[in-house]
């Protein structure tokens, strides 16, 4: 989903920077508020940023398509620390990737943060909360969150790319073409991201349910009987 340096025209690159700015500012504000309540939040967010950084630049070969792609990781980040802090995490990860790995670019950082950070995090968080409200287990809700965060990110990338490069051409045929080109790779990879997210949430529930309680992912009623807080 990394749109490389120079692909978007200046006007669109600026537009996506402006669009993402309020979310990043709110993310910083939210993180500071959380850190005032609990000092361990900042190291935890730092750890999650490292996880998202690795996940979102790790190429995974997809034999069905003959290409490589990467999951996003913002689904699990949004579940654990909320969508606003997850936007901040995505912005930092994408900035480091753009600076040192030539993944994405500085001019397209706003656009890439919007798709992976804003859309990915919101899709993952809403899916998780929605599935939990419908009575879904942690694993199922985590799976749906990871799946929709991934697919949402790539759908947003398709739209951003199509808007930026279409010129005078009609939007919908180009958008359809980009979406179709992503499907063979991203359809299975989204399912993989769902499984990874479900696995991470379930593992945390088994090993450190107190962390999930602290981050308001579960309520006290849902704590396993062996857990101590």
């Amino acid at each position, binding site marked *: 989903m990394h749109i490389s340096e120079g692909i978007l025209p200046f006007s669109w690159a600026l537009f996506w920077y402006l669009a993402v700015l309020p979310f990043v500012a709110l993310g910083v504000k939210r993180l500071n508020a959380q850190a005032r309540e609990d000092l361990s939040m900042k190291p935890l967010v730092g750890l999650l940023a490292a996880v998202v950084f690795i996940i979102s630049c790790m190429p995974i070969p997809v034999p069905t398509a*003959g290409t*490589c792609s990467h999951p996003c990781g913002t689904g699990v980040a949004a579940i654990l620390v909320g969508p606003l802090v997850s936007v901040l995490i995505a912005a930092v990860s994408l900035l480091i990737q753009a*600076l040192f*790995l030539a993944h994405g670019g500085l001019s397209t950082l706003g656009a890439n943060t919007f798709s992976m950070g804003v859309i990915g995090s919101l899709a993952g968080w809403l899916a998780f909360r929605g599935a939990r409200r419908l009575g879904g287990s942690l694993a199922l809700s985590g799976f749906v969150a990871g799946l929709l965060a991934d697919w949402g990110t790539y759908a947003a990338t398709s739209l951003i790319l199509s808007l930026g*490069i279409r010129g005078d051409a009609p939007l919908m045929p180009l958008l359809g073409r980009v979406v179709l080109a992503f499907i063979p790779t991203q*359809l299975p990879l989204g399912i993989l991201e769902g*499984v990874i997210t479900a696995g991470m949430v379930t593992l945390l529930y088994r090993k*450190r349910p107190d962390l999930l309680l602290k981050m308001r992912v579960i309520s006290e009623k849902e704590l396993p009987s062996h857990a101590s807080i």
Partner: protein
Amino acid sequence: MPQYKRRWKMLLLHMIILPTLFFGIYSFSLAPKSWEGVDEAVVEKIAKEHGREAREPLIDPGSGDLLLFGFLLAGAVGGFAAGYFWRQLITKD
């Protein structure tokens, strides 16, 4: 197990197994596989067709496997550190 839970589990199972089977069979096709990243295979390719080409990055990491080696080294060091301090990581004070 309650009926609705059984239904959810069956639905989830189908959501995973059916696409996996479909793509598993599809992957045996003889189409050439370039193993390019989708960023190049989709984003840059379609952008180029519309007259937008990717520029050189500000800090060019170069080509070849040097960067990969750096990542591998960092991964090995990080993995060793995480393994060494595993008990401190997973146990609560």
